[in-house]
């Protein structure tokens, strides 16, 4: 009985608290309106002569009239994430009527999730993605919006480099907006090479082998690699194949037009085996993720790393002075030079909820200002020809030189070929790495996979 009296008293006190707090409705309303006035200062200034009550009404109306643009991006690493958030913030201040609903998803997870995004109703308006086969898969299924009109209307046909325009089109219609590319090269620590007496960057195959020999003698691992998720190993295949057999054969192989049991492919692996036999690589490459493989380089225990330009995002800033790169050595001077330069960009889904807003945002992302900022902040090379290159640092100029002097630009193994082939191929590369004698068996399996994929495509 007593207990229930206490309970009643407590609940009455609670209610009294509610009533008291509710008794301040006027101030609550006022603060709400004030906040909104702050956001909309530009509108309010225009309406200077309007009376107080009307101002309140105007602000509420403007807020309701937004058509949001949803933007899904995979820029999860620290520096790209900062860049992404900065450009979205700039757009939001310039276009408060088209606010961006910005989602950043981890890079690897985005690759799996994109299928769900593109088939959702409504799908996100703008998404980050890679050029090449990866985009082509979705374009062929009709999930990507044709943006030829936006390219024309915004003059992109004049300001984009022809190579990238070709990359963005299928059957003369533009589906993709390539905005940045980065080069792949062998990054190395000049101090370590100088230490063992290598003065010049290795340019030929023999140079590379002799550099490996000298580094091994000094107790430094010549080449580090972090192949836990397999794709860094595919880079070695790409470059060796392009250097030994030429980029044309490589691209035909990626398009499933050439056989994996071709003797030219076997030759590529023979060169690879030379490197493995000469103990050029770090031990247990599959135990490390690609970022973890940077540790030996930083600690001075390894000298070289075949990796893309984004290695500098994860490389400690204070050690970047001692980081340089060189082109993958030429094996046969008669063979055209192919380079991997994966191109990133954006596209729009066909099921987009806000196509007009999406196209506007897309064109902003492909604009000169954003590309200039990407160049300055991230060192990513612009695909537009009108970006000012005078301020860029020497390493970036070197990279641009590297790509512009190449005869052919490939995307990367898992972007040039279909996902199941890439999966099977990368698995085979890792198995070859463990036991090079298995190569014929592995190539046979890859050939079977290729035939299976051709069969599936024909169905």
């Amino acid at each position, binding site marked *: 009985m007593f207990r229930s009296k206490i309970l009643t008293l407590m609940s009455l006190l609670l209610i009294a608290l509610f009533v008291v707090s509710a008794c301040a409705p006027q101030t609550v309303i006022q603060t709400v309106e004030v906040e909104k006035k702050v956001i909309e200062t530009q509108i309010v200034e225009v309406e200077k002569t309007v009376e107080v009550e009307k101002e309140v009404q105007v602000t509420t109306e403007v807020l309701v009239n937004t058509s949001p643009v949803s933007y899904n991006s995979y820029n999860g690493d620290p520096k790209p994430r900062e860049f992404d958030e900065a450009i979205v913030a700039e757009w939001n201040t310039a276009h408060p009527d088209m606010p961006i609903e910005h989602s950043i998803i981890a890079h690897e997870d985005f690759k799996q999730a994109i299928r769900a995004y593109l088939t959702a109703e409504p799908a996100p308006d703008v998404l980050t993605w890679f050029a090449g086969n990866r985009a082509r898969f979705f374009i062929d299924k009709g999930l990507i919006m044709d943006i030829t009109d936006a390219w024309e209307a915004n003059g992109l046909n004049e300001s984009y480099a022809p190579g990238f325009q070709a990359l963005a089109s299928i059957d003369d219609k533009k589906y993709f907006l390539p905005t940045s590319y980065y080069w792949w090269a062998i990054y190395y620590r000049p101090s370590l090479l100088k230490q063992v007496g290598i003065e010049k960057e290795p340019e030929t195959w023999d140079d590379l082998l002799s550099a490996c020999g000298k580094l091994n003698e000094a107790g430094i691992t010549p080449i580090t690699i972090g192949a836990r998720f397999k794709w860094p190993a595919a880079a070695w295949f790409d470059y060796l194949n392009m250097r030994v057999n030429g980029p044309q054969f490589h691209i035909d192989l990626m398009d499933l037009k050439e056989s994996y049991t071709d003797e030219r492919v076997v030759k590529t692996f023979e060169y690879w085996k030379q490197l493995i036999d000469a103990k050029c690589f770090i031990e247990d490459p599959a135990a490390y993720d690609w970022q973890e493989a940077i540790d030996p380089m930083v600690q001075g225990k390894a000298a070289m790393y075949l990796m893309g330009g984004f290695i500098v995002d994860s490389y400690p800033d204070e050690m970047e002075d001692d980081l340089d790169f060189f082109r993958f050595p030429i094996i046969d001077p008669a063979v055209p030079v192919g380079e991997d330069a994966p191109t990133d960009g954006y596209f729009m889904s066909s099921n987009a909820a806000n196509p007009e807003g999406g196209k506007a945002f897309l064109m902003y992302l492909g604009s000169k200002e954003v590309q200039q900022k990407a160049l300055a902040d991230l060192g990513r090379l612009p695909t537009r020809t009108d970006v000012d290159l005078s301020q860029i640092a020497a390493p970036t100029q070197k990279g641009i030189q590297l790509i512009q002097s190449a005869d052919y630009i490939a995307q990367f193994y898992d972007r040039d070929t279909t996902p199941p082939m890439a999966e099977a191929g990368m698995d085979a590369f*890792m198995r070859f790495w463990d036991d090079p004698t298995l190569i014929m068996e592995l190539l046979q399996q890859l050939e079977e996979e290729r035939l299976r994929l051709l069969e599936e495509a024909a*169905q």
Partner: protein
Amino acid sequence: MEERWDFNAAAIVALLCCVIALFAFLFMPWIGVHLTDNGARLFSDYVYNATNSRPVPLIWIIPAILTAATGFALWGVLDPEKGRFASPLVALLGAIGLVYFIVAFVGPAPVWSNPKLIPGLGFWVVLGCILGMILQPALAWPPINNALERLSRSLPKSKKGISPKLIPYLFLLPALALYLVWIIGPTFYTMYLSLTNWDGVSTPKMVGMANYIRLFTKDKLFIESLINNLRWLLVFITIPTTLGLGMAMIFNQEMKGGRFYKVSFYAPLVLSLPVIGLIWSWVYNPRLGLINNFLFLLNFKEVPGWLGDRSLAIWCVIAAAVWRQVGYVMVLYLAGLKNIDPSFIDAARVDGADRWNLFRHVVFPLLAPVTTIIVVISIIDSLRSFDLVSIMTRGGQSTQVLANFMYIEAFNNYRMGYGAAIAVVLFAISLVFIGFYLSRVVRDELEY
């Protein structure tokens, strides 16, 4: 109060009003006609200052009073004696809720003034329920209450109620409905998908048993996954079970810090598997990891590559899984040991059994039900394993397991039909063990 006010009917009406109001707030449109503009979403947009939040000042009153009122109304229905105060309390809360509507209609920015903010169905339903909440104590007023009672007495009584056999199923109905829609349905859909060559975006096309034939005859990765799952199963049935039993026997005795040890051994189960995978992959790092650095300390020059070594990788992953499982088995066995009737132990001691014979002939047989549960759970967990493999190696280094293989085939390679076939195979394997376990359990129950 000459007659006692009977708040039973009022409390039921109050509960009804509160529940309907809560549903309306959560699921019906508050502004306009779109279901996405429900009260709950507008409330959270307002609280978090989302970019497109509509101005709904004071809306926080509604969820606050509704939750409090539902609590009080429930108290009133369940405890008619002490809960008599619930009904007036609910009326009071309703009056507070009315403040929001008063402000909405006659406040500084009334709802009529803005054509874009026309109240929706949810708004009106909640208003109606709030009025109901304010008025319901009237049902307890003796004249009205007596009228209600006379009404209920005059209603024809049905001879049969609900048949007693039907009642368990009626209780199960909500849960069964959800289970059917979200688990049984997709299972059958997956079985259908396994007979197609769906790639996730175009329309599926039937190919019959082609996926299964390919799985069992041509796919090397499938065989490898199957073998890895089998290894996982064999390790899981033996090692965590013996270690867990040993630890349970040790910690069953009173000892200093016993509770601390039990908690620390159980702790890994609280960690999520991806976290365990990440940290163990650091431990296994050949250059910087814990294990190899310990070996370097002991002057070993040649150390294993752990995850980098194709022959060791799967065992490394299984070891991380065992580390987590041991605590779970230990706790189950501890519970089983506590349930052993001490008279059995005493009788065996009187008969002169030493510790080993005591364990072998008395304790272990009495733990048989727990052992069965543990073995079945170990088998199911080993077949289900996905997280650790996905985080530590993503299926590389010959650590592929069925669940990860299915995930990669379905979501990375866009072969949904093939992935479905793998899922069905996994389901069939699990069904064998689960069927065996269920038959044992049901048989035992019938014996009692």
